[in-house]
């Protein structure tokens, strides 16, 4: 069944997320990595990644995001950056900063690193370290003046939730003092470890409402100085997010062992099988692998989504979330007010400051 305003079945991916390792010195309560992490001995080799980056660039991918885990855990990180640049990709790295030195950073920049993202867990050290599950806050703060010595775009990511949202204005002020080029203010998304800690991290309605004008004011105040982007907590919305820009439409994620996924948490959906870059060319995976085909286009959609004019904006929302909340990955994302399950969110929005935190292994 295809409607007249069908979503184009095959587009070109724009970004490649390379999870080069799941090893990480941090154990953040909100980590979006899967609960079953890939072990070090299964990780792709430098040569594997080099081949993947070339295939990605051939397909039209523009941005490479090196992430993990902590990319610094890979000793061949400079080679990986160089391989990305040689392929013609824009190279971004998402790091905790733990393990970075000025010498190491100089090598990474020399190898072609163009953008570095550093997240902060809170503005106050004890709380930040509690959320990160390790003593990382002071290391991050100390790294910033070092970063500023290099020709490199620098983004600060503030991850917000119940435990720090009451201090958002001060949290933004801390980030502002560190003079990043970009500032992302991102509510936790409830997948992976964050889902395990959902009731602990879930903000209250009042907190969310108070945060909106603070973010808007920061955007206005910092215009021309720091580019601010904000991710709204979708549990409090009436329309779903266009998760990963639509399934199999804009991005590919390669996990440390070489499995190609349409999104971070796709493995939670029953019946998914992922092809591996060790066995297949990236273009073949993009076009033909069952994982990327599964929710591409609109054939899978419920009649409500299929006839909805918003389907070309949100692509039916998040498949993982639909499955996690309803047990049916084809269901309307319950964030949508048109979902028969929309009321579920009322219960899931309940925060419980008393539950014990579960840190990532």
């Amino acid at each position, binding site marked *: 069944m295809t409607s007249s305003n069908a979503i184009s079945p095959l587009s070109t991916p*724009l970004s490649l997320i390379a999870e080069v390792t799941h090893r990480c010195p941090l154990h953040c309560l909100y980590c979006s990595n899967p609960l079953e992490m890939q072990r070090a001995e299964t990780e792709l080799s430098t040569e594997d990644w080099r081949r993947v980056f070339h295939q990605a660039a051939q397909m039209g991918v523009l941005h490479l995001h090196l992430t993990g885990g902590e990319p610094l855990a890979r000793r061949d990180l400079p080679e990986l950056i160089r391989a990305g640049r040689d392929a*013609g990709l824009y190279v971004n790295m998402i790091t905790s900063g733990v393990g970075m030195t000025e010498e190491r950073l100089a090598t990474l920049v020399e190898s072609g690193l*163009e*953008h570095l993202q550093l997240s902060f867990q809170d503005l106050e050290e004890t709380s930040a370290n509690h959320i990160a599950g390790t003593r990382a806050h002071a290391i991050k703060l100390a790294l910033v003046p070092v970063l500023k010595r290099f020709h490199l*775009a*620098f983004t600060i990511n503030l991850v917000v939730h119940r435990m720090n949202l009451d201090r958002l204005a001060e949290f933004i002020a801390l980030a502002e003092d560190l003079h990043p*080029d*970009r500032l992302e203010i991102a509510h936790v998304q409830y997948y992976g470890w964050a889902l395990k800690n959902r009731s602990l991290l879930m903000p209250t309605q009042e907190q969310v409402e108070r945060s909106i004008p603070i973010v808007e004011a920061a955007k206005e105040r910092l215009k021309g100085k720091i580019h601010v982007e904000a991710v709204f907590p979708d549990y409090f919305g009436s329309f779903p997010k266009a998760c990963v820009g639509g399934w199999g439409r804009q991005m590919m994620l390669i996990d440390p062992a070489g499995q190609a996924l349409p999104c971070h948490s796709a493995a939670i959906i029953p019946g998914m099988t992922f092809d591996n870059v060790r066995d297949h060319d990236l273009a073949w995976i993009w076009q033909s692998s069952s994982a990327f085909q599964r929710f591409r286009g609109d054939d899978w959609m419920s009649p409500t989504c299929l006839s909805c004019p918003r389907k070309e904006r949100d692509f039916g929302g998040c498949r993982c979330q639909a499955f996690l909340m309803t047990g049916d990955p084809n269901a309307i994302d319950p964030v949508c007010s048109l979902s028969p399950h929309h009321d579920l969110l009322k219960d899931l929005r309940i925060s419980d400051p008393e539950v014990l935190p579960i840190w990532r292994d």
Partner: protein
Amino acid sequence: MELNSIPRLAPGCRLHPTESVLLIPEGTLNLTGPTREILRMLDGKRNVTDVVTDLLQQFEGADAVEVQRDVLGLLDRLQQRGVVRT
């Protein structure tokens, strides 16, 4: 942005080698008209007047006042977006 400002692309921003696209952190900006040509001239040495002079040589018969206004407007917008610095 002033006529004697020396604009340059911000760190982490560069032109795509072949397409009319500016690669920026977490995204791209599609460049229309002569924008790519203008950004290509931002070498950290040329000021806005130099860029306008160059453009007037390339586009014979173009109105100098209009070109100057358009270039200043474009660079101001890109500065607001954080992809051009002075």
